Protein backbone atom coordinates (compact mmCIF):
# COMPACT_ATOMS: atom_id res chain seq x y z
CA UNK A 1 0.00 0.00 0.00
CA UNK A 2 0.99 3.61 -0.40
CA UNK A 3 -0.21 6.66 1.47
CA UNK A 4 0.63 9.61 3.63
CA UNK A 5 -0.09 10.68 7.18
CA UNK A 6 -0.05 14.40 8.01
CA UNK A 7 0.59 16.56 11.09
CA UNK A 8 -2.91 15.96 12.50
CA UNK A 9 -2.53 12.19 12.33
CA UNK A 10 0.83 12.37 14.08
CA UNK A 11 -0.41 14.75 16.77
CA UNK A 12 -3.35 12.38 17.36
CA UNK A 13 -0.97 9.42 17.52
CA UNK A 14 1.16 11.11 20.15
CA UNK A 15 -1.94 12.11 22.10
CA UNK A 16 -3.18 8.51 21.97
CA UNK A 17 0.18 7.24 23.19
CA UNK A 18 0.24 9.68 26.11
CA UNK A 19 -3.37 8.83 27.00
CA UNK A 20 -2.84 5.08 27.18
CA UNK A 21 0.44 5.45 29.12
CA UNK A 22 -1.33 7.80 31.56
CA UNK A 23 -4.21 5.37 32.03
CA UNK A 24 -2.14 2.29 32.56
CA UNK A 25 0.66 3.73 34.72
CA UNK A 26 -1.83 5.60 36.90
CA UNK A 27 0.49 8.29 38.27
CA UNK A 28 3.27 5.91 39.31
CA UNK A 29 6.86 7.12 38.78
CA UNK A 30 8.08 6.33 35.26
CA UNK A 31 10.97 7.27 33.00
CA UNK A 32 10.69 7.61 29.22
CA UNK A 33 13.79 6.71 27.22
CA UNK A 34 13.67 7.64 23.53
CA UNK A 35 15.81 5.87 20.94
CA UNK A 36 17.83 8.09 18.59
CA UNK A 37 16.91 9.37 16.22
CA UNK A 38 13.19 10.36 16.27
CA UNK A 39 12.29 8.02 19.14
CA UNK A 40 13.82 10.73 21.33
CA UNK A 41 11.48 13.33 19.82
CA UNK A 42 8.41 11.09 20.23
CA UNK A 43 9.41 10.50 23.88
CA UNK A 44 9.91 14.21 24.45
CA UNK A 45 6.49 15.10 23.01
CA UNK A 46 4.77 12.39 25.05
CA UNK A 47 6.66 13.63 28.12
CA UNK A 48 5.42 17.18 27.55
CA UNK A 49 1.82 15.91 27.72
CA UNK A 50 2.43 13.66 30.75
CA UNK A 51 4.22 16.50 32.56
CA UNK A 52 0.83 18.24 32.91
CA UNK A 53 0.08 15.68 35.63
CA UNK A 54 1.70 15.92 39.04
CA UNK A 55 3.92 12.85 38.89
CA UNK A 56 7.54 11.69 38.98
CA UNK A 57 8.73 11.63 35.37
CA UNK A 58 12.25 11.24 33.99
CA UNK A 59 13.47 11.52 30.43
CA UNK A 60 16.50 10.04 28.71
CA UNK A 61 17.94 9.45 25.24
CA UNK A 62 19.55 6.25 24.04
CA UNK A 63 21.94 6.00 21.07
CA UNK A 64 22.09 2.36 20.03
CA UNK A 65 24.53 2.68 17.09
CA UNK A 66 27.21 0.70 18.95
CA UNK A 67 24.76 -2.15 19.60
CA UNK A 68 23.36 -2.75 16.13
CA UNK A 69 23.84 -6.13 14.48
CA UNK A 70 22.71 -5.20 10.98
CA UNK A 71 24.31 -2.46 8.90
CA UNK A 72 27.01 -1.33 11.27
CA UNK A 73 29.81 -3.28 9.69
CA UNK A 74 28.48 -3.58 6.18
CA UNK A 75 28.93 0.04 5.21
CA UNK A 76 30.13 3.07 7.05
CA UNK A 77 29.61 3.15 10.77
CA UNK A 78 26.70 5.36 11.79
CA UNK A 79 27.51 8.70 13.30
CA UNK A 80 27.33 8.53 17.07
CA UNK A 81 25.46 11.20 18.97
CA UNK A 82 25.73 9.53 22.35
CA UNK A 83 23.21 8.66 25.02
CA UNK A 84 21.92 11.03 27.68
CA UNK A 85 20.67 9.19 30.72
CA UNK A 86 21.19 11.42 33.74
CA UNK A 87 19.16 9.42 36.26
CA UNK A 88 19.88 6.13 38.00
CA UNK A 89 17.77 3.56 36.18
CA UNK A 90 18.32 0.73 38.68
CA UNK A 91 14.94 -0.56 39.82
CA UNK A 92 13.03 2.04 37.78
CA UNK A 93 9.96 1.53 35.62
CA UNK A 94 11.19 2.48 32.13
CA UNK A 95 9.26 2.96 28.94
CA UNK A 96 11.39 2.67 25.81
CA UNK A 97 10.06 4.89 23.04
CA UNK A 98 10.66 4.63 19.30
CA UNK A 99 9.05 6.09 16.20
CA UNK A 100 8.42 2.91 14.17
CA UNK A 101 8.36 -0.71 15.29
CA UNK A 102 9.21 -3.09 12.44
CA UNK A 103 11.44 -6.18 12.77
CA UNK A 104 12.18 -5.60 16.46
CA UNK A 105 15.95 -5.58 15.97
CA UNK A 106 16.35 -1.99 17.09
CA UNK A 107 14.53 -2.82 20.32
CA UNK A 108 16.75 -5.84 20.93
CA UNK A 109 19.80 -3.57 20.57
CA UNK A 110 18.19 -0.96 22.84
CA UNK A 111 17.57 -3.57 25.55
CA UNK A 112 21.24 -4.58 25.36
CA UNK A 113 22.32 -0.95 25.63
CA UNK A 114 19.97 -0.27 28.56
CA UNK A 115 21.33 -3.19 30.56
CA UNK A 116 24.81 -1.64 30.40
CA UNK A 117 23.48 1.36 32.32
CA UNK A 118 22.04 -0.74 35.14
CA UNK A 119 19.14 -3.02 35.95
CA UNK A 120 15.71 -1.41 35.55
CA UNK A 121 12.86 -2.88 37.59
CA UNK A 122 10.65 -3.07 34.52
CA UNK A 123 10.92 -2.10 30.86
CA UNK A 124 7.97 -1.49 28.56
CA UNK A 125 7.82 -0.46 24.93
CA UNK A 126 5.90 2.44 23.40
CA UNK A 127 5.91 3.16 19.65
CA UNK A 128 4.30 5.89 17.61
CA UNK A 129 3.74 3.51 14.67
CA UNK A 130 3.54 -0.28 14.68
CA UNK A 131 3.89 -1.49 11.10
CA UNK A 132 4.16 -5.22 11.88
CA UNK A 133 6.50 -7.88 10.39
CA UNK A 134 8.47 -8.79 13.49
CA UNK A 135 11.57 -10.97 13.22
CA UNK A 136 12.08 -11.28 16.97
CA UNK A 137 9.74 -12.06 19.89
CA UNK A 138 9.21 -8.38 20.76
CA UNK A 139 5.79 -6.71 21.13
CA UNK A 140 4.84 -3.15 22.05
CA UNK A 141 2.94 -2.29 25.23
CA UNK A 142 1.69 1.05 23.90
CA UNK A 143 0.95 1.94 20.27
CA UNK A 144 -0.01 5.38 18.88
CA UNK A 145 -0.85 4.39 15.29
CA UNK A 146 -1.25 0.77 14.11
CA UNK A 147 -0.35 0.66 10.42
CA UNK A 148 -0.94 -2.14 7.96
CA UNK A 149 2.00 -2.51 5.57
CA UNK A 150 3.59 -5.18 3.45
CA UNK A 151 7.03 -6.49 4.31
CA UNK A 152 8.71 -4.58 1.47
CA UNK A 153 7.07 -1.18 2.03
CA UNK A 154 9.17 1.75 3.17
CA UNK A 155 7.75 3.72 6.07
CA UNK A 156 9.46 7.13 6.16
CA UNK A 157 8.78 9.21 9.25
CA UNK A 158 9.56 12.93 9.47
CA UNK A 159 9.05 14.80 12.72
CA UNK A 160 8.82 18.54 13.38
CA UNK A 161 11.81 18.82 15.71
CA UNK A 162 14.12 16.51 13.77
CA UNK A 163 13.11 17.07 10.16
CA UNK A 164 11.09 20.31 10.18
CA UNK A 165 7.68 18.74 9.49
CA UNK A 166 5.34 16.03 10.77
CA UNK A 167 4.77 13.49 8.01
CA UNK A 168 4.68 9.75 7.38
CA UNK A 169 5.09 8.38 3.87
CA UNK A 170 4.40 4.77 2.98
CA UNK A 171 6.03 3.77 -0.27
CA UNK A 172 5.94 0.52 -2.16
CA UNK A 173 9.42 -0.83 -2.71
CA UNK A 174 10.16 -0.74 -6.45
CA UNK A 175 13.22 -2.96 -6.79
CA UNK A 176 12.89 -6.61 -5.72
Amino acid at each position, binding site marked *: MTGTLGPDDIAAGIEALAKVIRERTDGRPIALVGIRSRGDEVAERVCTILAEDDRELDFGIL*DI*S*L*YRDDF*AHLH*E*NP*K*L*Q*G*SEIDFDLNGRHLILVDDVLFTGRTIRAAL*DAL*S*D*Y*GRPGRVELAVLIDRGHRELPIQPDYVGIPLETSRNDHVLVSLQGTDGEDKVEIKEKTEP
Partner: protein
Amino acid sequence: MARKDLLDLASLDRSEIDHLLEQAVPFKEVFTRSVKKVPALKGKSVLMLFYEPSTRTHSSFEVAAKRLSADVTNFDVAHSSVVKGESVRETVETLQAMRTDYIVVRHGRSGLPAMIASQTKASVVNAGDGAHAHPTQGLLDAFTLKEVFPEPEGRRVLIVGDILHSRVARSTSKVLKKLGVEVAYLGPGSLLPRTCPLGIPRFTDYEEAMRWKPDVVYLLRVQMERQEAQFFPSLREYHRVYGMTHERLKRIEDAGIWLMHPGPVNRGVELCDQAMDYSRSLINTQVENGIAVRMAVLYWLKPREG
Protein backbone atom coordinates in the same frame (compact mmCIF):
# COMPACT_ATOMS: atom_id res chain seq x y z
CA MET B 1 34.13 8.82 4.28
CA ALA B 2 35.82 6.15 6.35
CA ARG B 3 39.44 5.25 5.70
CA LYS B 4 41.27 1.98 5.89
CA ASP B 5 44.30 3.21 7.86
CA LEU B 6 45.38 6.01 10.16
CA LEU B 7 49.06 6.63 9.45
CA ASP B 8 49.45 10.35 10.08
CA LEU B 9 47.35 13.47 10.57
CA ALA B 10 48.68 15.31 7.53
CA SER B 11 46.48 13.17 5.27
CA LEU B 12 43.27 13.92 7.21
CA ASP B 13 41.23 16.95 6.30
CA ARG B 14 39.62 19.28 8.81
CA SER B 15 36.21 17.62 8.59
CA GLU B 16 37.69 14.19 9.33
CA ILE B 17 39.54 15.53 12.35
CA ASP B 18 36.38 17.28 13.59
CA HIS B 19 34.44 14.05 13.07
CA LEU B 20 36.90 11.99 15.14
CA LEU B 21 37.00 14.60 17.93
CA GLU B 22 33.18 14.69 18.02
CA GLN B 23 32.90 10.91 18.04
CA ALA B 24 35.25 10.60 21.02
CA VAL B 25 32.64 12.37 23.19
CA PRO B 26 30.05 9.52 23.23
CA PHE B 27 32.86 7.01 23.78
CA LYS B 28 34.01 8.93 26.83
CA GLU B 29 30.41 8.77 28.10
CA VAL B 30 30.71 4.96 28.08
CA PHE B 31 33.31 5.21 30.89
CA THR B 32 30.70 6.65 33.25
CA ARG B 33 28.27 3.74 32.93
CA SER B 34 28.07 0.64 35.09
CA VAL B 35 29.27 -1.48 32.14
CA LYS B 36 32.21 0.32 30.52
CA LYS B 37 32.03 -1.62 27.31
CA VAL B 38 30.09 -1.63 24.04
CA PRO B 39 29.71 -4.47 21.50
CA ALA B 40 30.65 -2.36 18.44
CA LEU B 41 33.69 -4.47 17.43
CA LYS B 42 32.46 -7.80 18.77
CA GLY B 43 34.06 -10.64 16.83
CA LYS B 44 36.81 -8.40 15.39
CA SER B 45 40.46 -8.89 16.25
CA VAL B 46 43.07 -6.27 17.03
CA LEU B 47 46.75 -7.15 16.89
CA MET B 48 49.27 -5.11 18.83
CA LEU B 49 52.59 -5.05 17.00
CA PHE B 50 55.05 -3.06 19.11
CA TYR B 51 58.67 -3.10 18.02
CA GLU B 52 59.53 -0.40 20.55
CA PRO B 53 58.81 -0.40 24.27
CA SER B 54 55.68 1.51 25.30
CA THR B 55 53.53 1.00 28.34
CA ARG B 56 51.10 3.89 28.02
CA THR B 57 50.23 3.85 24.35
CA HIS B 58 50.15 0.06 24.32
CA SER B 59 47.80 -0.25 27.28
CA SER B 60 45.67 2.67 26.08
CA PHE B 61 45.06 0.95 22.71
CA GLU B 62 44.47 -2.35 24.45
CA VAL B 63 41.87 -0.87 26.81
CA ALA B 64 40.24 0.97 23.88
CA ALA B 65 39.97 -2.23 21.82
CA LYS B 66 38.61 -4.22 24.77
CA ARG B 67 36.00 -1.57 25.56
CA LEU B 68 34.80 -2.03 21.98
CA SER B 69 34.57 -5.81 22.65
CA ALA B 70 37.33 -6.67 20.14
CA ASP B 71 39.71 -9.56 20.81
CA VAL B 72 43.24 -8.31 21.43
CA THR B 73 46.37 -10.29 20.62
CA ASN B 74 49.77 -9.07 21.66
CA PHE B 75 52.47 -9.93 19.18
CA ASP B 76 55.32 -9.99 21.63
CA VAL B 77 58.23 -8.92 19.49
CA ALA B 78 60.88 -9.64 22.12
CA HIS B 79 59.84 -13.31 22.19
CA SER B 80 58.94 -13.69 18.54
CA SER B 81 60.74 -14.90 15.48
CA VAL B 82 61.80 -11.31 14.92
CA VAL B 83 64.77 -12.04 17.16
CA LYS B 84 65.42 -15.07 14.96
CA GLY B 85 65.77 -12.71 12.00
CA GLU B 86 62.25 -12.74 10.55
CA SER B 87 61.70 -9.64 8.46
CA VAL B 88 58.76 -7.29 9.01
CA ARG B 89 57.40 -8.37 5.63
CA GLU B 90 57.36 -12.03 6.65
CA THR B 91 55.74 -11.13 9.96
CA VAL B 92 53.01 -9.23 8.14
CA GLU B 93 52.37 -12.15 5.78
CA THR B 94 51.92 -14.37 8.82
CA LEU B 95 49.53 -11.87 10.39
CA GLN B 96 47.59 -11.59 7.13
CA ALA B 97 47.07 -15.37 7.25
CA MET B 98 45.69 -14.95 10.78
CA ARG B 99 42.97 -12.68 9.31
CA THR B 100 43.33 -9.99 11.89
CA ASP B 101 41.07 -6.95 11.32
CA TYR B 102 43.15 -4.17 12.89
CA ILE B 103 46.91 -3.85 13.44
CA VAL B 104 48.29 -1.26 15.85
CA VAL B 105 51.97 -0.69 15.03
CA ARG B 106 54.82 1.05 16.74
CA HIS B 107 58.26 0.95 15.16
CA GLY B 108 61.47 2.96 15.40
CA ARG B 109 61.62 3.46 11.65
CA SER B 110 59.54 6.21 10.05
CA GLY B 111 57.17 4.94 7.37
CA LEU B 112 57.09 1.33 8.48
CA PRO B 113 53.35 1.38 9.41
CA ALA B 114 52.61 2.69 5.90
CA MET B 115 54.59 -0.18 4.41
CA ILE B 116 52.60 -2.69 6.49
CA ALA B 117 49.32 -0.97 5.56
CA SER B 118 50.07 -1.37 1.85
CA GLN B 119 50.51 -5.12 2.29
CA THR B 120 47.50 -6.08 4.35
CA LYS B 121 43.73 -5.90 4.22
CA ALA B 122 43.68 -5.09 7.91
CA SER B 123 43.28 -1.50 9.08
CA VAL B 124 46.62 -0.19 10.33
CA VAL B 125 46.90 2.40 13.09
CA ASN B 126 50.26 4.08 13.53
CA ALA B 127 51.06 4.14 17.25
CA GLY B 128 54.32 6.01 16.66
CA ASP B 129 56.93 5.54 13.94
CA GLY B 130 60.40 7.00 14.43
CA ALA B 131 60.32 10.78 14.51
CA HIS B 132 57.54 10.81 11.90
CA ALA B 133 54.09 10.69 13.50
CA HIS B 134 51.94 9.65 16.43
CA PRO B 135 48.48 10.55 15.14
CA THR B 136 46.36 9.33 18.06
CA GLN B 137 48.52 11.40 20.45
CA GLY B 138 47.82 14.48 18.35
CA LEU B 139 44.09 13.72 18.36
CA LEU B 140 43.92 13.12 22.11
CA ASP B 141 45.81 16.36 22.76
CA ALA B 142 43.39 18.26 20.51
CA PHE B 143 40.42 16.60 22.23
CA THR B 144 41.80 17.50 25.68
CA LEU B 145 42.38 21.10 24.61
CA LYS B 146 38.85 21.34 23.19
CA GLU B 147 37.37 20.19 26.49
CA VAL B 148 39.05 23.16 28.19
CA PHE B 149 38.57 25.59 25.29
CA PRO B 150 35.48 24.59 23.27
CA GLU B 151 36.41 27.31 20.74
CA PRO B 152 40.17 26.67 20.47
CA GLU B 153 40.81 29.06 17.59
CA GLY B 154 43.42 31.68 18.52
CA ARG B 155 44.45 29.92 21.75
CA ARG B 156 48.20 29.54 22.28
CA VAL B 157 50.09 26.35 23.07
CA LEU B 158 53.80 26.44 23.92
CA ILE B 159 55.53 23.10 23.35
CA VAL B 160 58.70 22.72 25.42
CA GLY B 161 61.59 20.29 24.96
CA ASP B 162 63.16 18.21 22.23
CA ILE B 163 61.07 19.32 19.28
CA LEU B 164 63.48 17.97 16.71
CA HIS B 165 63.15 14.26 17.55
CA SER B 166 59.59 14.35 18.84
CA ARG B 167 56.80 12.74 16.86
CA VAL B 168 54.44 14.01 19.58
CA ALA B 169 55.46 17.60 18.80
CA ARG B 170 55.02 16.92 15.11
CA SER B 171 51.58 15.30 15.29
CA THR B 172 50.22 17.57 17.98
CA SER B 173 51.38 20.78 16.25
CA LYS B 174 49.84 19.59 13.02
CA VAL B 175 46.39 18.93 14.46
CA LEU B 176 46.41 22.07 16.62
CA LYS B 177 47.30 24.23 13.62
CA LYS B 178 44.43 22.64 11.68
CA LEU B 179 42.10 23.70 14.50
CA GLY B 180 43.39 27.28 14.30
CA VAL B 181 45.41 27.06 17.52
CA GLU B 182 48.68 29.02 17.62
CA VAL B 183 51.71 26.90 18.46
CA ALA B 184 55.24 27.93 19.52
CA TYR B 185 58.30 25.89 20.41
CA LEU B 186 60.74 26.36 23.29
CA GLY B 187 63.89 24.30 23.73
CA PRO B 188 67.65 24.15 23.43
CA GLY B 189 68.82 25.44 20.05
CA SER B 190 70.27 22.02 19.26
CA LEU B 191 66.80 20.44 19.64
CA LEU B 192 64.72 22.93 17.66
CA PRO B 193 64.02 22.34 13.98
CA ARG B 194 66.01 24.76 11.82
CA THR B 195 63.00 25.57 9.67
CA CYS B 196 59.33 25.35 10.53
CA PRO B 197 57.06 24.81 7.53
CA LEU B 198 54.01 25.70 9.62
CA GLY B 199 55.43 29.14 10.49
CA ILE B 200 55.79 28.32 14.16
CA PRO B 201 57.72 30.79 16.39
CA ARG B 202 60.76 29.27 18.11
CA PHE B 203 62.18 30.36 21.46
CA THR B 204 65.31 29.28 23.30
CA ASP B 205 64.70 31.57 26.27
CA TYR B 206 61.99 30.76 28.82
CA GLU B 207 61.19 34.39 29.68
CA GLU B 208 60.84 35.31 26.05
CA ALA B 209 58.49 32.37 25.50
CA MET B 210 56.31 33.42 28.45
CA ARG B 211 55.96 36.92 26.99
CA TRP B 212 54.27 35.19 24.01
CA LYS B 213 51.45 34.56 26.55
CA PRO B 214 50.58 30.88 26.10
CA ASP B 215 47.27 29.43 27.38
CA VAL B 216 48.85 25.98 27.69
CA VAL B 217 52.42 24.85 28.40
CA TYR B 218 52.97 21.42 26.85
CA LEU B 219 56.08 19.71 28.24
CA LEU B 220 57.65 16.98 26.12
CA ARG B 221 59.32 14.01 27.73
CA VAL B 222 63.12 13.90 27.76
CA GLN B 223 63.67 10.53 26.13
CA MET B 224 66.51 9.02 28.13
CA GLU B 225 66.41 5.83 26.08
CA ARG B 226 67.28 7.78 22.96
CA GLN B 227 70.33 9.37 24.53
CA GLU B 228 68.80 12.79 24.18
CA ALA B 229 70.77 13.82 27.21
CA GLN B 230 73.81 14.32 24.99
CA PHE B 231 72.16 17.43 23.56
CA PHE B 232 72.36 19.33 26.85
CA PRO B 233 74.94 19.47 29.70
CA SER B 234 72.96 17.60 32.41
CA LEU B 235 69.42 16.71 33.44
CA ARG B 236 69.65 19.15 36.33
CA GLU B 237 70.68 21.85 33.90
CA TYR B 238 67.73 20.96 31.64
CA HIS B 239 65.34 21.23 34.58
CA ARG B 240 66.81 24.60 35.57
CA VAL B 241 66.57 26.07 32.07
CA TYR B 242 63.45 24.42 30.55
CA GLY B 243 61.78 22.44 33.33
CA MET B 244 58.59 23.35 35.21
CA THR B 245 60.34 24.34 38.42
CA HIS B 246 58.49 25.16 41.62
CA GLU B 247 58.97 28.87 41.00
CA ARG B 248 57.71 28.67 37.41
CA LEU B 249 54.74 26.61 38.54
CA LYS B 250 53.63 29.46 40.81
CA ARG B 251 53.91 31.87 37.92
CA ILE B 252 51.83 29.78 35.54
CA GLU B 253 49.28 29.27 38.32
CA ASP B 254 48.93 33.03 38.73
CA ALA B 255 48.57 33.42 34.98
CA GLY B 256 45.95 30.61 34.81
CA ILE B 257 48.00 28.57 32.36
CA TRP B 258 47.16 24.87 31.78
CA LEU B 259 49.80 22.13 31.83
CA MET B 260 50.06 19.13 29.50
CA HIS B 261 52.56 16.28 29.10
CA PRO B 262 52.28 13.10 26.98
CA GLY B 263 53.69 10.90 29.75
CA PRO B 264 55.46 9.12 31.26
CA VAL B 265 56.80 11.99 33.32
CA ASN B 266 60.43 12.26 34.43
CA ARG B 267 60.07 13.95 37.81
CA GLY B 268 62.77 16.46 38.52
CA VAL B 269 63.53 16.78 34.80
CA GLU B 270 60.56 18.16 32.82
CA LEU B 271 58.67 19.06 35.96
CA CYS B 272 59.01 19.26 39.73
CA ASP B 273 57.06 17.06 42.17
CA GLN B 274 54.54 19.79 43.00
CA ALA B 275 53.54 20.05 39.34
CA MET B 276 51.95 16.59 39.58
CA ASP B 277 49.24 18.05 41.86
CA TYR B 278 48.82 21.31 39.94
CA SER B 279 45.13 22.22 39.72
CA ARG B 280 45.33 23.06 36.00
CA SER B 281 47.28 19.92 35.09
CA LEU B 282 45.63 17.99 32.25
CA ILE B 283 48.10 15.09 32.38
CA ASN B 284 45.66 12.52 33.81
CA THR B 285 42.85 13.80 31.62
CA GLN B 286 45.09 13.15 28.61
CA VAL B 287 45.37 9.49 29.67
CA GLU B 288 41.60 9.07 29.99
CA ASN B 289 40.91 10.93 26.75
CA GLY B 290 43.50 8.79 24.96
CA ILE B 291 41.25 5.75 25.40
CA ALA B 292 38.13 7.55 24.12
CA VAL B 293 39.96 8.93 21.08
CA ARG B 294 41.47 5.53 20.22
CA MET B 295 38.00 3.94 20.49
CA ALA B 296 36.71 6.56 18.06
CA VAL B 297 39.60 5.83 15.67
CA LEU B 298 39.13 2.04 15.71
CA TYR B 299 35.37 2.45 15.23
CA TRP B 300 35.92 4.81 12.30
CA LEU B 301 38.47 2.77 10.31
CA LYS B 302 37.22 0.20 7.84
CA PRO B 303 39.35 -2.88 7.10
CA ARG B 304 39.23 -4.02 3.46
CA GLU B 305 36.67 -6.76 2.86
CA GLY B 306 37.59 -10.30 1.97
